[in-house]
């Protein structure tokens, strides 16, 4: 049977991190399966966890009264979800819902924060990894806003 | 007319024949008798433009032109020279790449469509008074419109029967810069006939030579006499004075590195500066003897059963020119002027193995705001200095 540290090691987010760091973080982590339709996070509720998605699809969405859930992006095996646990007030900005069975590892936000405070070197390493993914997500969101496949490009001045 | 091969005719030694100016009409009549339509310089609308020539009386004898950036006037000369001016607003391309021509006609009945090519019965063309820069311009258009996988067949047909009488330039306008582009003032490409006009005291004659068999046949019909060494020297002196005039003028420059210069300077601030003045009026492209861009127009009659397609000259200065779904790729004057000049002087080399500019100066004279290509080159070069 694989240990939590093994599972962390397998996820791209932790690629290249020393074994000692993974062991150190393992105590924050638990293996966790979500069934189709279950929420990993709900908008405007405490953001207690950071998720490593091992397999399955997760929709990041927001609810629109006259349309229902509006999906902003889907996340897949190898992706991560959630950084609201990093900053006060630790509240989720969007819903995250399993679109099929999702196998994940979730790490406690408070636990991670504490580890990072006591081990700033590791904290900075993780922060760089978050920042890179956040930047990629921002770039993707910008491209999405461009509506590049539309029959007319966006009007000048409306690009993000 | 033969392919435009390079010749060394800056040397007058080969000009063995002398034609008295009074006998110039004999030359025109001889060409007409060979079944050609003769076109040459005529004075129309206060400009020396190309038109039909039936006799030497149609030529603008005793006239010259005064040219500067955005400025053109014709005025009287103090002598009776036939070719005592340089190039005007027209170029020969209007007879070879027609400004407006039908391509096909089409008809529709119910679900059936027919498309029929419109083929012109091409006339035999003769150009009288072709300058060296213009022969180069024709050679450049040949490379674009004939030496292609899919030639422009109308151009090719008009071009293949062309007879040219070239004239060595013995005077230059301030706008001329053929010395910079190595296209003149002496004729350096094969022409059926080439002449140099000489006015010396009371004498007025042409030294003339043939470059093709047909040219020689026509020469044989003329009242010629052998030229003397002194007459050849007089002709040579005229060409040299035009050359000196240009080399000492403000528009002569070293063009050997133009391609590299412009390839380095797609983002030069000079493009913004010139865009403040350029009206995007397309005059330069219409006057340019090598600009070849065209577009097509499709029309139907009122019944909706008959359609036609016409081709007409187009210009990279129009907003439609680069239109793709959603808008123009070259939306502003900066990008259009840059496209025109960079194509002419730089990318043309990669596409057609030569510059697209022959230094005729038309774009300078006929620019309503006097934008000067040679000055723009200088500005780009100066702005590049650290």
């Amino acid at each position: 049977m694989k240990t939590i540290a093994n599972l962390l090691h397998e996820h791209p987010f932790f690629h290249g991190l020393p074994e000692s760091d993974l062991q150190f973080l393992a105590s924050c982590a638990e293996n966790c399966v979500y069934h189709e339709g279950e929420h990993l996070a709900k908008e405007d509720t405490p953001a207690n966890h950071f998720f490593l998605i091992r397999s399955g699809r997760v929709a990041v969405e927001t609810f629109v009264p006259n349309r229902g859930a509006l999906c902003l992006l889907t996340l897949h095996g190898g992706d991560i979800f959630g950084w609201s646990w990093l900053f006060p007030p630790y509240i989720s900005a969007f819903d995250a819902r399993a679109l099929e069975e999702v196998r994940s590892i979730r790490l406690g936000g408070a636990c991670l924060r504490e580890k990072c405070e006591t081990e700033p070197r590791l904290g900075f390493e993780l922060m760089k990894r978050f920042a890179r993914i956040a930047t990629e997500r921002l770039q993707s969101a910008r491209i999405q806003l461009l509506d590049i496949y539309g029959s007319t490009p966006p009007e000048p001045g409306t690009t993000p | 007319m033969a392919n435009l091969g390079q010749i060394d005719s800056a040397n007058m030694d080969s000009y063995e024949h002398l034609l008295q100016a009074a006998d110039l009409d004999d030359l025109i009549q001889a060409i007409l008798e060979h079944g050609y339509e003769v076109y040459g310089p005529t004075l129309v609308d206060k400009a020396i433009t190309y038109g039909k020539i039936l006799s030497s009386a149609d030529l603008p004898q005793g006239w010259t032109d005064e040219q500067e950036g955005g400025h053109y006037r014709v005025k009287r000369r103090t002598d009776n020279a036939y070719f005592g001016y340089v190039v005007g607003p027209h170029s020969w391309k209007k007879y070879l790449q027609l400004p407006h021509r039908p391509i096909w006609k089409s008809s529709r009945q119910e679900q059936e469509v027919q498309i029929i090519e419109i083929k012109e019965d091409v006339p035999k063309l003769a150009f009288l008074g072709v300058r060296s820069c213009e022969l180069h311009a024709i050679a450049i258009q040949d490379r674009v419109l004939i030496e292609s996988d899919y030639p422009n067949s109308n151009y090719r047909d008009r071009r293949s029967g062309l007879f040219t009488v070239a004239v060595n330039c013995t005077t230059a306008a301030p706008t001329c810069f053929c010395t910079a582009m190595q296209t003149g003032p002496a004729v350096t490409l094969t022409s059926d006939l080439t002449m140099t006009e000489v006015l010396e005291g009371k004498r007025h004659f042409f030294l003339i030579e043939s470059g093709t068999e047909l040219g020689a046949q026509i020469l044989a019909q003329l009242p010629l006499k052998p030229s003397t060494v002194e007459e050849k020297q007089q002709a040579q002196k005229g060409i040299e004075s035009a050359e000196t005039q240009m080399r000492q003028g403000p528009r002569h420059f070293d063009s050997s590195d133009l391609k590299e210069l412009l390839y380095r300077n797609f983002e030069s601030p000079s493009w913004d500066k010139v865009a403040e003045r350029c009206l995007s009026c397309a005059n330069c492209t219409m006057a340019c003897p090598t600009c070849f861009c065209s577009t097509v127009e499709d029309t139907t009659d009122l019944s909706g059963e008959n359609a036609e397609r016409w081709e007409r000259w187009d210009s990279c200065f129009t907003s439609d020119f680069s239109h793709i779904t959603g808008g123009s790729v070259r939306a502003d004057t900066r990008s259009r002027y840059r496209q025109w000049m960079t194509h002419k002087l730089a990318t043309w080399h990669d596409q057609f193995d030569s510059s697209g500019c022959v230094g005729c100066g038309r774009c300078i004279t006929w620019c309503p705001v006097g934008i000067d290509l040679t000055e723009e080159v200088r500005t780009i070069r100066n702005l590049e200095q650290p």
Partner: protein
Amino acid sequence: MIPEVYKVIHRQEEYPGTFTLHLESPASPPMVYGPGQFNMLYAFGTGESAISFSGLEVEEGLLVHTIRAQGTVTRALERLKKGDSLGVRGPFGRGWPLQGIEGKELLLIAGGLGLAPLRPVVYRAWQGKLKASRARLFYGARRPTELLYGDEIPHWITKLDVVMSVDHGDNAWPGHIGVITDPLQASDIDGANTVAFLCGPEIMMRFCIQVLLRKGVPESAIYLSMERNMKCAIGLCGHCQWGPNFICKDGPVFCYQDIRAWFQIHGL
């Protein structure tokens, strides 16, 4: 060059405003063309539009063209019914380089209508004719209702890895929601052994090329299809000029290595 008259023998609506025409010439022998080349389609009295080949040349001499109605000419083509006639000039341009894929991983990256010029390559990959060690299609579109060839894609996935991503989708959509660069970034790509063909909006191609370069795909193995205004299609009219290239005859498919200098110059 005068168009040949072809007849519409089949018309299929892909989604509103986008349709596929199957054309047949009553008179001419079947046209020989390569994937990535294009035809000029003439709508009677209205004009011509440059449209890529979207079918297989072996389909009994048929021409297959997928068209989005967005200008005067394409809207006139949209009104054509079965049995109607239109003019066709072609084939023109340089297409996808199908030699040199053998043994390589082939990445086809399409955005929106950009799948149309890649469909003949998809067919060949599906048939195994390209002898690629692996063939994958990344297809980005606006929404699930604006996908091309929706009824064929389930067949493609039997022999091809197909990754689809839409900007906007609902719960019924089984693929990615987001942008196509994300699944491309997340995929395992053997950079040195990959050949990539891209066709789609220029912005999309720019971003995808950045991902490919990060993955170690050499510039010389990236090919893209460019779009500019085309009138004559034979390099005579000047409209599609792009740096020292005429898109119509030097392209529309270019090797990224050859054109990268021009790719970043705005308003060229």
